[in-house]
């Protein structure tokens, strides 16, 4: 019998996410081919920008939100050993989110919402697109509420006990997401929906972009959290070792929670309407948010080293070879860490107050976030799926060998796709273009890298289909899975008593509120203090 009463909703959520992912991967291949302009029949800005908008929404909003919700429900029930707080409400949230996606899909697929997933007013999409996106966010708030209520119930039943690390991280993410999504929710509710329905005539684009920046950076940590939770709580056991430090994991979660929202202006470095001092303030926070990632790198690699040595690995590097490379969770972790390292270096450039000038809005940025998100984060989503599918379905994974091949292909494809993109960015290629009708002297330097990106796109699509096939076949596998327990990692040192601050969220939420008022208070208020001019809607 399954140990969690959330298996149904978790499976349903993750399936929605992975179906969206497969469709988006197909669109991704179309986009690299279109952009290379090798097949003239495919060249069409209408199709291309519709495709980019859909790809972004599916990958950034649908895959992520549904995976976070599904994994979160399963983590909450298994780590707390507790039933869902309110199962009908959880399903209501799920269906609300699905309805939101379907509502947004209409205008997206018919070319009536080719405004990219960042909305970009004053380009205006069909109102159904904005309303659908809102329902998606509101549906995910139900998940946030479920997580917070489950933690509260557990704390009441276990006074003074240390919250299991996996649940501590999951709740941190629920709180993070609620605070993060308020920015885009305000933009959509107070500006875009009334404007697209004709209730108001104009929007202040500066205010809209400021509100979006509130969401735009922390959302990537919302996406990243499940990966980090798996790295800390599932990987050490999968590798045959222990978690190096439970407290450092909590410390990293807290730092991510506090520092990831009030730093969104590094997306606005090149924008007018915000003064340099505010941008600089947000930059300092941006560098601080690199610290929890560096801590995570250390703790996870140290945990792997413990496992490698327990398995008989000797010497400075011998433990690496002794790791169970045939375990999808371990393999995904190693590949994720490599991609995180490459992507992290690039991120430092993007985050820099002045160096950002060189790469802003170039293909470099696309390369960066495909490495960090598409690479590091999504490869951990695969590992989570391979680990949980047998436990949720009670069937053994259809093919471990196929899973390993899929992970390697994803890694190779991602490097082939993104490293050339970095080169293209430095060579001046803008992101978000469907063709390159520029000077030959400029365009000629791009050809090799563009050819490589098409190869990367083919490999990635193949890998995406292998994932979906493997998960699908698992449901029909005749061999039953015997171990249905989610084996959370034991820390190397057991903690006698967790400090209150590292076992609760009240103080940290208060700190975020103060930090947010300091970093976003005046920058938002200024739009109401100065004479601004709204902008009328424009079609694409």
């Amino acid at each position, binding site marked *: 019998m399954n140990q969690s009463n959330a298996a149904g909703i978790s499976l349903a959520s993750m399936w929605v996410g992975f179906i969206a992912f497969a469709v988006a991967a197909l669109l991704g291949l179309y986009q690299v081919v279109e952009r290379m302009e090798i097949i003239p029949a495919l060249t069409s800005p209408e199709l291309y*920008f519709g495709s980019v908008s859909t790809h972004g929404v599916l990958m950034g909003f649908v895959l992520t939100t549904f995976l976070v919700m599904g994994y979160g429900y399963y983590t909450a029930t298994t780590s707390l050993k507790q039933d869902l707080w309110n199962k009908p409400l959880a399903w209501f949230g799920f269906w609300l989110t699905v309805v939101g996606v379907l509502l947004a899909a209409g205008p997206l697929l018919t070319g009536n919402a080719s405004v990219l997933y960042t909305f970009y007013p004053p*380009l205006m999409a069909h109102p159904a697109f904005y309303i659908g996106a809102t329902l998606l966010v509101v549906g995910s708030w139900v998940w946030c509420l479920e997580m917070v209520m489950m933690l509260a119930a557990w704390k009441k039943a276990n006074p003074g006990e240390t919250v299991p690390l996996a649940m501590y991280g999951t709740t941190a993410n629920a709180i993070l997401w609620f605070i993060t999504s308020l920015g885009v929710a305000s933009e959509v509710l107070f500006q875009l929906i009334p404007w697209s329905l004709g209730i108001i005539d104009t929007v202040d684009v500066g205010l809209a972009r400021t509100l979006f920046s509130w969401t735009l950076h922390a959302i990537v940590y919302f996406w990243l959290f499940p990966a980090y939770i798996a790295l800390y709580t599932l990987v050490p056991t999968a590798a045959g070792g222990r978690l190096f430090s439970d*407290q*450092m994991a909590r410390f990293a979660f807290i730092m991510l929670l506090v520092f990831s929202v009030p730093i969104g202006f590094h997306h606005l470095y090149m924008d007018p309407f915000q003064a340099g001092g505010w941008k600089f303030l947000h930059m300092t926070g941006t560098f*601080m948010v690199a610290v929890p990632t560096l801590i995570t790198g250390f703790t996870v690699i140290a945990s792997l080293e413990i496992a490698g040595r327990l398995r008989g690995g000797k010497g400075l590097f011998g433990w690496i070879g002794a790791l169970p490379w045939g375990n999808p969770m371990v393999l995904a972790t190693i590949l994720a860490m490599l991609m995180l390292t490459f992507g992290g270096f690039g991120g430092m450039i993007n985050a820099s107050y002045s160096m950002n000038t*060189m790469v802003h809005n170039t293909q470099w940025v696309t390369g960066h976030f495909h490495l960090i998100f598409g690479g590091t984060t999504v490869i951990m989503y695969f590992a989570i799926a391979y680990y949980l599918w047998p436990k949720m379905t009670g069937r053994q994974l259809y093919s471990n060998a196929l899973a390993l091949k899929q992970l390697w292909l994803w890694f190779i494809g991602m490097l082939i796709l993104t490293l050339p993109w970095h080169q293209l960015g430095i060579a001046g290629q*803008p992101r978000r273009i*469907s063709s390159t009708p520029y000077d030959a002297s400029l365009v000629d330097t791009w050809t090799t890298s563009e050819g490589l990106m098409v190869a990367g796109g083919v490999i990635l699509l193949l890998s995406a289909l292998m994932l979906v096939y493997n998960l699908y076949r698992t449901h029909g596998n005749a061999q039953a899975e015997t171990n249905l327990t989610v084996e959370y990692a034991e820390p190397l040192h057991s903690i006698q008593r967790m400090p209150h601050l590292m076992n609760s969220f009240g103080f940290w939420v208060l700190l975020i509120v103060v930090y947010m008022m300091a970093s976003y208070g005046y920058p938002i208020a200024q739009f109401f203090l100065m004479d601004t001019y709204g902008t009328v809607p424009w079609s694409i």
Partner: protein
Amino acid sequence: MDPLKAICEDPLERKWIWLSLIMAFVLGGLLGFYALSSNIHPPSNVETIDSSRLHLTTEFAEDNLGVRPNGDGSLTVTMVAARYGFYPPRIEVPVDTPVTFRIASADVLHGVHVPFTNMTTMVVPGYISEVNTSFPRTGEFSLLCNEYCGLGHDSMWSRLVVVPESAGGESS
């Protein structure tokens, strides 16, 4: 006393955290130092304008666009970005001369990027973008729109020509 000791038992990990923190501070500090000492800032002008009435303003009226000397040896380049072009379409400036670009959008969001130079800014309707820079190398550069502005976005680009000092600079 190591303040990290309260939350982290392992001395090696504490060293790593200190190293990470120092790295974050040094990087931030360096960027702050250059921002202040060399006046290197991203374009951060806060100035509003009614984008639907650019043609009625003095500064962005068609006749007044282009390159103008400021009297102190520096130049001001006034431009309008509108789907799908930059106006005037060709800008000529002398090498190694301080140039202030002032750009407004007549419609939607645009971006400007001149690859291999420091000339980049977003152009946001309702606001005036201002970039202060100079060009150390002569030659013909592409001035690209680097922000999605509609289905014709790809074809929105023009030229920036950096000429030797003696030739002066003008727009046509």
